[in-house]
């Protein structure tokens, strides 16, 4: 490869900075684009003014053209509004997954093609790998601790063909070394964390959701239905949660069920949190779907450990080989064959 025209999504972080530098090294014609996604208050993540400044300065340092694209309307419609609506229904969404699904890849790729680019690149820690039947798929990053294949699992083969993930081949330490060697200003910048459109200061998620939907109280009960107390915002409670329910919980009490319409939260022990299966909806596949009865590894949250499961009913049902933590409805569940991303879906109730 070489001399392709590539648009790198420059977030203002170290990974995308190094991705751009690597592609330049390989001889591509590289330009950078920073996406303005969120106009509201935020103190972290990928769309603050300070990050746009960092991205622009990195582009200047690399001598590449820098664009700023305002995809705020798409971000509101596809990420923020559904995030709020999901909480109102008692679901636990992955906004980063939806942002990648609708904005970072779909929208940016379309824009890049309009402008005559051959491909886009991002700083995600994921590897693009050749598939046995041709084309490219996705695999876990070299740096397992930083692997982000979970949040890009929804990309189809046709999209992956036009995406590059240069830093997926490096450890985070190597990324930082390269950035330092190049003198990039982002070399020591901390990793972004949390939901980028919610400011951690000023009340975080409670303030954010509370200004958009009514937060309602709920009765907290034990497995037998006995009332333990009340919590003031059932929309903020997630299955598996151990703290912040507003009831003094013993050592081993977890949220095992959240019923938003019924305004009821059930607490139980770790054994009550176990589930032997998860139901999936909105399935998507990188290439061919997983086969029924196939043994796969599944990851049920952004930083969760993979667990073994058996595919049933076209992956609308996954049966865990060992009982595991119940998956909060709304979470993305990603299927792997060893390191290869097969696809995933959204955990359903039941």
């Amino acid at each position, binding site marked *: 490869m070489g001399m392709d025209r590539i648009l790198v999504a420059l977030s203002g972080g170290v990974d995308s900075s190094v991705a751009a530098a690597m592609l330049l090294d390989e001889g591509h014609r590289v330009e950078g684009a920073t996406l*303005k*996604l*969120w*106009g*509201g208050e935020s103190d972290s993540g990928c769309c603050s003014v300070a990050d746009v400044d960092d991205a622009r300065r990195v582009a200047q340092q690399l001598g590449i053209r820098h*664009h700023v*694209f*305002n995809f*705020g*309307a798409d*971000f*509101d419609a596809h990420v923020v509004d559904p995030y709020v609506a999901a909480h109102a229904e008692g679901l636990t969404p992955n906004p980063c997954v939806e942002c990648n699904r609708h904005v970072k890849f779909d929208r940016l790729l379309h*824009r890049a093609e*309009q*402008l*005559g680019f051959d491909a886009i690149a991002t700083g995600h820690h994921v590897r693009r790998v050749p598939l046995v039947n041709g084309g490219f798929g996705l695999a876990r990053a070299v740096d397992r601790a930083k692997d982000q294949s979970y949040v890009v699992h929804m990309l189809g083969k046709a999209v992956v063909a036009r995406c590059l993930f240069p830093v997926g081949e490096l450890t985070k330490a190597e990324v930082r070394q390269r950035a330092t060697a190049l003198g990039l200003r982002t070399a020591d910048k901390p990793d972004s964390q949390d939901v980028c459109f919610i400011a951690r200061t000023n009340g975080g998620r409670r303030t954010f959701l509370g200004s958009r939907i009514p937060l309602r109280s709920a009765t907290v009960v034990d497995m037998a239905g006995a009332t333990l107390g009340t919590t003031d915002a059932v929309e903020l409670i997630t299955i598996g949660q151990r703290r912040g329910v507003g009831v003094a919980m013993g050592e081993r009490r977890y949220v095992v069920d959240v019923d938003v319409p019924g305004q009821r939260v059930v607490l139980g022990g770790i054994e009550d949190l176990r589930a032997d299966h998860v139901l999936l909806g909105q399935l998507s596949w990188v290439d061919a779907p997983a086969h029924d009865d196939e043994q796969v590894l599944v990851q049920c949250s952004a930083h969760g450990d993979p667990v073994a499961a058996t595919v049933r009913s076209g992956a609308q049902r996954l049966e865990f080989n060992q009982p595991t933590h119940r998956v909060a409805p709304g979470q993305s569940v990603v299927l792997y064959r060893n390191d290869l991303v097969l696809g995933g879906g959204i955990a359903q109730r039941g």
Partner: protein
Amino acid sequence: MVSAATAYLDHAATTPLRPEARAAMLEWMGDRFGNPSGSHTPSRAARQAIDEARDVVAAALGATAREIVFTGGGTEALNLALSGSLGARESASRSGGNLMVLTSAIEHDAVRNAALALVRHGRITHRQIPVSRFGVIDLEVLRTLLMDGPVDLVAVMAVNNEVGTIQPIGEVVALVRQHAPGAVVVVDAVQGAAWIDMAAAGLGADLIAVSAHKFGGPQGVGALVVREGTSIEALLHGGGQERERRSGTQNVAAIVGMAAALRTTIDKRAEDMVHIEQLRSRLVDGLVSAIPGCTETVPRAHKVAGNAHVCIEGVESESLLVLLDDGGVYASAGSACASGAIHISPVLEAMGIAPSLALGSLRLTLGPASTDTEVDLALTVVPAAVARLRN
């Protein structure tokens, strides 16, 4: 910007420095220097330079030299006009009552956000004066608002920065004097000074703001006319320069550059306008005929000569501007998309332009140095870019 390969069509954003301004400035960027507030020979020379510049700017704006306050640009001048005059009213009334401010719905952010900041601080109530589909202030609504209760300040721009519409400042002043004689009239002439005779147009206004880089002067310098009898409190406190209204050592080079640019602009205006009007008409007519779904946003009769503004169906300005840049055509979408999640320009929204159309807005603004070659380039590059985006 006369080059075969590029067309600078963003004069409403900033203009190339006029040679006369450059020459005047260079005098103060070498051997000549001096703090205008001092008493020795170099200081007196600097003082004389800004005094002479003050006379030029005053004459251009229909003011006396004492009425001119030099500032660090148009935004500062407008903030001083709003906050400074309202601050003086608050001090005088001592009741600390909430003041009523009317601004047009298409004011530049320098006015809009200055007003919103005053609202946030609980100092004013802010009402907007709507505009017509052609981006011209609705005088009947203004009359109603003025008659509706005490009004303290009315701000209306002379020329809109996005669509180039000329506002009826004379009528605004007359209405305010008739219905709210105590109110202060602020005129943002940042876009107007290059195109219209502000000495005539601004007659009777209390505060008039200009910015040098919109008429061939340097960036970072502007002026505010503070009419005799209009009270104003300084925003910047310090050595008491500019008759206590704007402290800080004056930027001598920039001020003499602004005066030289303004004098040249006025001297050559009649001739420049004919030339620019011809170029603009050829540009707009060419775009409208070459691009299906391309419409002129406002009829030319309502606008200054240098502004071409079109809306193009089925394209996004953000993409279009990248392709124009690739083709050497330097343009703008207006002032939208600068920040936040709002895509649609508030100006186009106030004019009632459909969002689908406003998303494809394109502003091409010409100046005295614009050429036929640049228009030719734009007429080649813009239709090709639109065709590519629609493909």
